[in-house]
């Protein structure tokens, strides 16, 4: 059980990164982004392209860091892929959602168009790479560390949790301390008043897509390091991501963080009694229960 709990934290960290993006986009752009899972997939595959094609071609050595399963190649791929998916997020906003917003389209139309984007990205990846499962570094299973209570954990997993903590702290500092971060929170609070104050709210929307896309890419790569990657991975994450965002109170970044951990831990613990195939159902049941009992989420929306 203790071991499943620890694995749950690892999975929860990955879900949190994605859920934070969903909740930010929902709070500021005011749309449910059903393509968020595909942002994760895109991030994972862009990193695969970088570590297995571009960097070998550039002659970056395939060494690994100590007990970790990856080295310089992955470390270079990280920021590049995050930036690329940030760009993809902004690109689709410009191409589609912005135009729909200007026409005052309702929430359903925006959500459905993001569902379309989700299919597009997934199918493009599928066509290019085929349906196979892939690994950043095939065939090498690093020895696990033995922790107390019989917990076995791979160094990679410690790295995953550490990186998520760093990213979340950076995002927290950005939102609380910088002018742009405060303007993002202000826009989430009251878009009209933000405009009245002279804040360029369309610019804030771009920042939001960029941050959400970047975090999703990081989540996708971390999942790839921890497990594997395949074209449907992000789609499978969609329900846990929304469950986490709703659990924490949609629009509330800190809620999404906690919600992600809760969903991740619940999913992993469920494998003690259920087949792992039912993990998704666990997230779905939690989401339904929350919507029944406390639809505003545990932390009650973006604290209004």
């Amino acid at each position, binding site marked *: 059980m203790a071991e499943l709990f620890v694995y749950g934290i690892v999975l929860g960290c990955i879900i949190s990164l994605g859920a934070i993006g969903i909740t930010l986009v929902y709070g500021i752009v005011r749309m449910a982004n059903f393509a968020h899972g595909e942002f994760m997939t895109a991030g994972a595959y862009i990193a695969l392209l970088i570590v297995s094609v571009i960097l070998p071609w550039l002659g970056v050595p395939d060494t690994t860091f100590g007990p970790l399963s990856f080295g310089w190649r992955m470390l270079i791929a990280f920021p590049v892929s995050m930036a690329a998916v940030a760009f993809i997020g902004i690109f689709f906003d410009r191409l589609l959602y912005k135009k729909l917003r200007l026409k005052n389209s309702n929430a359903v139309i925006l959500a459905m168009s993001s569902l379309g984007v989700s299919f597009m990205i997934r199918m493009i990846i599928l066509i290019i790479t085929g349906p196979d499962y892939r690994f950043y570094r095939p065939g090498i299973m690093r020895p696990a560390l033995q922790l107390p209570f019989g917990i076995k954990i791979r160094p990679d997993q410690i790295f995953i949790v550490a990186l998520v903590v760093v990213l979340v702290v950076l995002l927290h500092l950005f939102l609380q301390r910088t002018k742009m971060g405060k303007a993002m*929170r202000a826009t989430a609070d009251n878009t*009209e008043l933000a405009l009245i*104050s002279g*804040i360029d709210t369309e610019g804030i929307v771009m920042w939001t897509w960029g941050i959400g896309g970047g975090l999703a890419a990081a989540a996708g790569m971390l999942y790839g390091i921890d497990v594997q990657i395949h074209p449907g991975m992000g789609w499978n994450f969609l329900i846990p991501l929304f469950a986490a965002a709703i659990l924490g109170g949609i629009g509330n970044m800190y809620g999404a963080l906690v919600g992600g951990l809760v969903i991740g831990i619940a999913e992993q613990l469920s494998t003690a009694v259920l087949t792992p195939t039912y993990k998704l159902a666990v997230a779905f049941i939690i989401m339904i229960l929350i919507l029944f009992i406390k639809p505003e989420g545990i932390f009650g929306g*973006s*604290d209004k």
Partner: protein
Amino acid sequence: MTILKAEGISAGYTELDILQNVSMKVKSNQIVSIIGPNGAGKSTLLKSIFGILNPRKGRIVLKDEDITGLKPNKVARKGISYVPQVSNVFPSLTIQENLEMGAFIRTDDFGGRMDEIYNLFPTLREKRKQKAGQLSGGQRQMVAMGRALMLDPIVLLLDEPSAGLAPLLVSTIFEKILDINKTGVSIAIVEQNAKEALKMADHGYVLAMGRNVLDDEGESLLDNEEVAKLYLGG
């Protein structure tokens, strides 16, 4: 000197014009009150001036510059600030952050300006780390006005600042408006509370059914029998 002029404004939210050929002007250092029954188009007039609504006819002139049709964030840069009647603070941001957002487009150091605003509203200084959403109605109104003042506006547009406030607070807010005016800011204020609004006004406009009905000095309008009967409750 005339600071702000609205000339022959026709505007509305749909094809229907709520305002029909409405004009008004604000001279430097004046308080101008706009009164009239519900639905007279008072708030619509402020929204048209600030660019939230695009007037179909007429023009808005600030000093000598035609600002008709500019978007709110551009109008703010020209020197007009606007306080909406409702949802006029950022509830999850602290008081201090609300004021910082008011200064969003300033690139210079606005610490001095913030200090002046805290001097105007000393309660806000004490509570500056508190979230605006947790404040009372009167304090919220002060945050809203403080936010609007951060840009050092030439003209401040206030939409029903006394709405929903307890009578005691209403007079506090009106005193604050007079204080703001004394610092050299011209003010255009829309009010239901017509008597109070005319008392402090240098000039008043009466609107009804989206049209100009009367305009005169504040005191004269107070003494006007027709105004008294229709809008001041006898």
